[in-house]
């Protein structure tokens, strides 16, 4: 029980000569609110891709709740509760909001393997999907195709899709990216209200969000961990200040 929610050991990813992940030793504690920050191209998204199995590491190990998952497929990792969102919304754009979430729950429940009964007969799944949309303020748009919604709303669906899978570890890749400033509040609220037992790692450029939510912060630069610490430690760190010179308000 004492093993951290997620751990990477000496994780390396090279594309030819380019090292996008350089010996990353990272620990996400259970129930953590952990931010991963760093300049553009630092390798943050690559790290999420490695952990979730989109990319295969060149070397190193990934552990989920103490068990090695390095060789598991993407879907096996999801089944074990490791769930991510995308920096650029990756939704079923032409399908309705409700259907997007329904598809995720149907996968979680294994109903999507049922090719005999109509999808509509799995009514509990549809109801659960609807109930998930309500607190996210998406219920009124349940039957509209995703593409008709503003991008800020689409970012909420992105989070809804992840929550539909009942994650134990949630990796949020820039949840507020591309959202107009007056709409980021709703996304921050949603992140703050996430169930406490979910371990959350979020990548974010918006320092206000980072310092409001994060209990720990890891700074990634050129594929390697520069420093890790509490928000106060990170704010005072001279190396971080150098990297973020003029970028951060803190």
């Amino acid at each position, binding site marked *: 029980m004492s093993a951290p929610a997620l751990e990477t050991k000496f994780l390396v990813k090279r594309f030819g000569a380019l090292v996008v992940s350089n010996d990353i030793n990272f620990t996400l504690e259970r129930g953590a609110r952990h931010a991963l920050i760093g300049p553009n191209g630092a390798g943050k998204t690559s790290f999420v891709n490695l952990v*979730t199995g*989109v990319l295969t590491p060149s070397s190193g190990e990934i552990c989920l709740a103490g068990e090695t998952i390095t060789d598991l497929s*993407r*879907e096996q990792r*999801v*089944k074990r509760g490791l*769930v*991510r969102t*995308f920096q650029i919304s*990756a*939704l*079923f*754009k*032409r*399908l*309705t909001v*409700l*259907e997007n979430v*329904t*598809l*995720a729950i*149907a*996968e*979680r429940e294994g*109903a*999507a*393997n*049922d*090719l*005999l*009964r*109509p*999808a*509509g*007969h*799995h*009514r509990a799944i*549809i*109801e659960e999907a*609807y*109930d998930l949309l*309500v607190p996210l303020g998406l*219920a*009124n748009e*349940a*039957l509209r195709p995703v593409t008709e919604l503003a991008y800020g709303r689409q970012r909420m669906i992105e989070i809804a*899709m992840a929550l*539909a*899978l009942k994650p134990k570890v949630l990796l949020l890749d820039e949840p507020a990216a591309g959202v107009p400033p007056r709409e980021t509040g709703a996304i921050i609220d949603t992140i703050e209200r996430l169930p406490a037992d979910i371990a959350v790692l979020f990548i974010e450029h918006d320092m206000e969000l980072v310092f409001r939510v994060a209990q720990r912060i890891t700074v990634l630069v050129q594929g390697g961990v520069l420093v890790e610490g509490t928000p106060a430690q990170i704010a005072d760190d001279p190396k971080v200040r150098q990297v973020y010179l003029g970028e951060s308000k803190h």
Partner: protein
Amino acid sequence: MTDLSSRDLMGDRKVVVDAFARRHRFKWYEAIPWLVAIACYFLFENYHALGAQIFATILFALSLDLLIGFAGIVTLGHAAFFGVGAYAAGVMAANGWQEPFSEILVAAIVASGVGFVSGLIVLRTAGLTLLMQTLVVAALLQELANKWSSVTGGSDGLLGMKIDPIFGAFRFDLFGDTAYVYCLGVLFIGWLLARNIVYSSFGRSLTGIRENANRMHAIGAPVDRRKIIIYTISAALAGVSGALIAQTTALVGLNTLALSKSGELIIMLVIGGIGRLYGGFIGVPLYMIAQDRFSQIDPIYWYFWIGLFMILVVVFARGGVLGVFERFNQRRRSR
């Protein structure tokens, strides 16, 4: 305030969930193809043989729509399964096994086997590579049928097929009266199956794969396995279609495996509308009736006209005939 809005929300919940959960119910217009088919039996007595061909080809188109339209698996080699089914039924009928339904069953099993095995290989790829690989599978099978002439009859085709009367009572006649009803019946069963799949949770997940395979991976869907399953089912339906053509024409040739066979089918499906379950019901009769009329006049110009028609469909009628209907309907409703 919370009281009122939460009550509204509960009301909405039922309305929304109902609307969503009832999508699979039969709509009145889904009866049209069947009513038309029955009416045509009495109206066009001299065209029953053509009608039978049309029904069998609609089943073929339906099987392709499951792949291209619903799962987003684009293939140029779908005739492989049609041809395998045709040869399976044909070889049985030419060698003494003459009961039609068991031939169909065997055709479905053999074609699905070929679909499963080739699917394991080709479905790892996507896009142009996939197109080429499906094409290669069909070409290989065609070459095999050509070389293995002791069984298939090679380039002369498979002759001497004999089919028992259906249920031991209805003989396949020269005018195609029996064939018409027989093919329509099998198409109906195939359509029920396809429709059921499309509206199932499995079918919806195929739509998810078509729309965004990355997202399907991210919600934990076994994407590759799903693709292989639908590929196998689709191959079985295509095989049944091939068996119907073999039985009702008493002839199987190498052309059943040809690239042109796959290509023509795509054209028919595009004309009718892809991804709508009913594209084949419109595109196939349009194409085959036009072909029957015009190809006798001038086969070369026939291909010119069909080419021109394809361009018009792609430029002006995205989604084929059914797409035009849908847009018309939306406009009328939004008024």
